[in-house]
């Protein structure tokens, strides 16, 4: 595939020529270059920066509600100064607490770990690693970011309205989310939440279709599907999952919007709220949960797969060894993507679901453990007898595997309906999904940022700060979430803001304090990472070699600061898979190098 079919070859040549001198020539205005840019790399950075801002907001929310959980009833006068009536007397009100946890979940799951993670790396890596000048449709790609931006604006605005943002949990189960009488957060804030998520779905679809089209159609010459780096495969399956499941969430939310505002009864039936008898009959509250989790479960893998892909790549590059079992890795990604659609009802074992149906979902859910186990064993074998370079990216990748093991194994408890009866909706669930989906994916994202930062900005992140960042986060993650499992084993329900009135759940006061303190420290260290990130964009050590990690993939054949169009001249041709590390005594053999006459086969 040559460069001629791509956008404006003339313009590309232009830019490339200018790149040798200085940036900021008059070809593109500031607006078209940095704001309404159609360059996939810039769009990726936009997703990343927006994601980081959201992560700070979402993380801050968790610190606030951890204060409540660790020190229930204690006054923090500064909270009243900042939040006014929501923290009267410096005590977090129940309504505020529920708004905080709802927004924490929504923000982290969708805005950070979906848009911020796959938005960033799909945009940055797909064209660079498949050998394309840009996405299939750079314009739609730009729209994808700006829909995300609009979704962000709407969600942020909901934080500032009189009745506050949505407060029914990130899963927004009706009837709670449908009835303004039942909760203050289900008033205007909930409508804004739905509108914001609708915009978000549009963004996810525009992005996802682009990723799929680019990967399928715009691979460079010689880049067969089985020569693609695993990052691209992971991003491909992520996009497919998103395209097939986000519309279902969309439809579910639209019906919810109808129930809220137009008097329909999709989810409502037999309701007397605050003494007021509602007219709705015949709806099913459980229907929403089916629609929600039909996205909600694939969403977990939308979050996790890109991290898995990047970790595979980073572990292979840094242990100077091929990824072990490329085809098995690929097959397990595929299996996970298929099974992701067939397990949603394991979130609903105790809703009155037909027990026979439940047993089918147990089987399918635990089946996911098989491809997951294959991935773990293959990562371990990749490290085995390697020559491992422990860069910050490698450490985060190793941390990812460790967390994925820990959180994956607790999933075997929860996926088993018998145990789920006891553990459902307890702190055990909170601990499980934070480790396996939240923190693990965050680790994948950090690994990706440390690894590809040189490609994004032509500079390095400060690695001493990187090491501090890793070790504090790693230790902190386990200190926060490991003991939390015990709270769940004691049956402590999640989303309780003060356990002191309960005989069965009040014995963990000191543990909750410890968790709160550690989470504040971990949050502070994340702020340090953010500082490192922005500082290094402008002041970081400059990259001097186009291929600083000695990696095989195509992005490292571009100039250090690639312009729009990525390669000067022809797009390189690919002759081999991406993982020829340590072959025939050579440290690495780039994908662009033709197979030698005497080269051994693998």
């Amino acid at each position: 595939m040559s460069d001629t079919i791509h956008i404006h070859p003339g313009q590309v040549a232009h830019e490339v020529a200018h790149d040798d001198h200085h940036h900021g020539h008059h070809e593109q205005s500031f607006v078209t270059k940095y704001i309404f840019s159609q360059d996939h790399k810039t769009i990726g950075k936009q997703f990343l920066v927006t994601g980081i801002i959201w992560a700070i907001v979402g993380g801050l929310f968790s610190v606030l509600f951890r204060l409540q959980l660790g020190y229930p009833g204690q006054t923090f006068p500064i909270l009243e100064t900042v939040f006014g009536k929501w923290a009267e007397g410096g005590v977090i009100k129940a309504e505020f607490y529920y708004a905080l946890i709802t927004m924490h979940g929504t923000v982290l799951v969708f805005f950070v770990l979906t848009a911020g993670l796959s938005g960033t790396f799909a945009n940055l890596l797909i064209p660079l690693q498949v050998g394309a000048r840009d996405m299939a449709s750079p314009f739609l790609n730009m729209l994808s970011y700006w829909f995300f931006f609009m979704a962000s604006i709407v969600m942020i605005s909901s934080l500032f309205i009189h009745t506050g943002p949505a407060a029914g949990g990130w899963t927004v189960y009706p009837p709670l989310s449908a009835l303004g009488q039942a909760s203050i957060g289900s008033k205007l804030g909930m409508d804004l939440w739905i509108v914001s998520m609708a915009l978000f779905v549009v963004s996810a679809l525009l992005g996802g279709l682009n990723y799929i089209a680019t990967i399928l159609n715009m691979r460079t010459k010689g880049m067969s599907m089985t020569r693609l780096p695993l990052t691209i495969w992971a991003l491909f399956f992520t996009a497919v999952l998103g395209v097939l499941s986000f519309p279902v969430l969309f439809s579910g939310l639209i019906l919810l919007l109808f129930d809220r505002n137009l008097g329909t009864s999709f989810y409502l039936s037999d309701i007397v709220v605050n003494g007021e008898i509602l007219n709705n009959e015949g709806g099913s509250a459980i229907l929403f949960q089916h629609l929600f989790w039909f996205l909600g479960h694939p969403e977990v893998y939308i979050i996790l797969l890109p991290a898995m892909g990047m970790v595979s790549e980073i572990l292979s590059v840094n242990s100077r060894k091929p990824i072990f079992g490329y085809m098995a890795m690929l097959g397990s990604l595929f299996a996970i993507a298929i099974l992701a659609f067939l397990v949603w009802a394991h979130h609903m074992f105790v809703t009155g679901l037909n027990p026979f149906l439940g047993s089918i979902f147990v089987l399918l859910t635990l089946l996911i453990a098989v491809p997951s186990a294959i991935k773990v064993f293959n990562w371990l074998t990749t490290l085995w007898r390697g020559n491992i370079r422990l860069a910050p990216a490698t450490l985060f990748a190793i941390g990812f595997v460790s967390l994925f093991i820990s959180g994956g194994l607790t999933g075997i408890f929860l996926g088993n309906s018998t145990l789920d009866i006891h553990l459902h909706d307890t702190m055990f669930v909170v601990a499980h999904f934070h480790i396996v989906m939240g923190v693990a994916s965050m680790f994948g994202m950090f690994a990706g940022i440390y690894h590809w930062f040189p490609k994004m900005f032509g500079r390095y992140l400060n690695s001493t700060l990187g090491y501090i960042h890793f070790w504090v986060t790693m230790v902190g993650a386990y200190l926060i979430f490991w003991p939390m499992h015990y709270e769940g084993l004691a049956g402590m329900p999640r989303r309780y803001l003060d356990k002191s009135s309960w005989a069965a759940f009040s014995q963990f006061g000191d543990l909750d304090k410890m968790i709160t303190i550690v989470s504040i420290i971990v949050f502070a260290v994340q702020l340090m990472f953010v500082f490192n990130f922005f500082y290094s964009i402008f002041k970081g050590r400059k990259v001097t070699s186009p291929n600083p990690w000695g990696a095989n993939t195509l992005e490292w054949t571009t100039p250090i600061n690639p312009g729009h169009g990525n390669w000067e001249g022809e797009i390189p041709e690919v002759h081999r898979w991406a993982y020829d590390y340590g072959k025939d005594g050579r440290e690495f053999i780039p994908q662009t190098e033709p197979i030698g006459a005497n080269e051994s086969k693998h």
Partner: protein
Amino acid sequence: MQTVFIVAILLLGFLITFQIAKASEYVAVLRGEEKAKKQTNKVNAFLLLAFLIVGLIGVYYCNETLKGRILGEAASNHGKHIDTMFHITLVLTGIVFVITQIALFWFSYKYQQSDDRKAYYYPHNNKLEVIWTVIPAIALTVLVGFGIFYWFKITGDAPKNAMEVEIVGSQFKWEFRYPGHDGPGGKGVFGKKYFKKITGDNPLGQIWEDPANHDDVYVTGEPMHLVVDKPVRLIINSKDVIHDVGLVHFRMKMDAVPGTPTTMWFTPTKTTKQMAQELGKANFVYEISCDQMCGKGHTGMRGELIVETQEEFDAWMATKQALYSKLFEKKQPAASDTTHTVDSTAKQVTAVLNK
């Protein structure tokens, strides 16, 4: 003032860390980057090993500290199955956890970069991959087998002699109804109800034309009473949003969904007094927790439950009066008749609660 102080200290600490980090970068450049890289590599490899060892000790220590705080032995028949299932899963996953975490950190430490090591080109090995596909598959089959076996036991039909109690959740309280003795063999039958009949006097919306309602006992503001070793089937309902009946000591849980009644059954095996003795807590109570977020009062949606002998239960029940007789027996029968013939008939079909 204190807050300002804390923020100042944090900022200062941060600045110092940052300066050290920046300086270390310069030092690395001065001393030769390769050498500095090798050293950090060694330090981090060592830390990985240390993390593994301290981490495993930490896991043990955490268990020692906290295992006394989780629940004691289950107080229901199903709870015992769930605990067995838990232990089977814990052993299997525990083995996998220890082996894989040790391998991960040990490999990362052992194969740290060194000049005299060459990475081993090892792209795949089909035999190995088959092995670690088949072994997890077998392990999981075992877990699925046990899981589904217990699951069907727990969710299967309740025994014929099971007593029935209705539990209704609403923001933010629990209400109970006992069916009396109006059915065949002295077993109670619940009267029909319809949500539009709900008033202050008739909190569950019972339909008074249905004679089955006439001996139904409504209980609120006090614990639910159950009989030890007698199976109980709970009929669970909600009036407004989704709640969840959580009974931790029995290990049971089921959502309360408005418009869609759910059920669960179990046999309590220990009276409240027995539990108090076993746990050494004189004031022990079984608690009913709401486990599905239901609004601002979710945390306080607490109910209590008493398990007692049949005699104690009968004595308690004897003090109760059916809601119907409370409401109507002192009043003019005619007056009450007119109020409920007006809004009866057609919609009763949808009001069928128990079949």
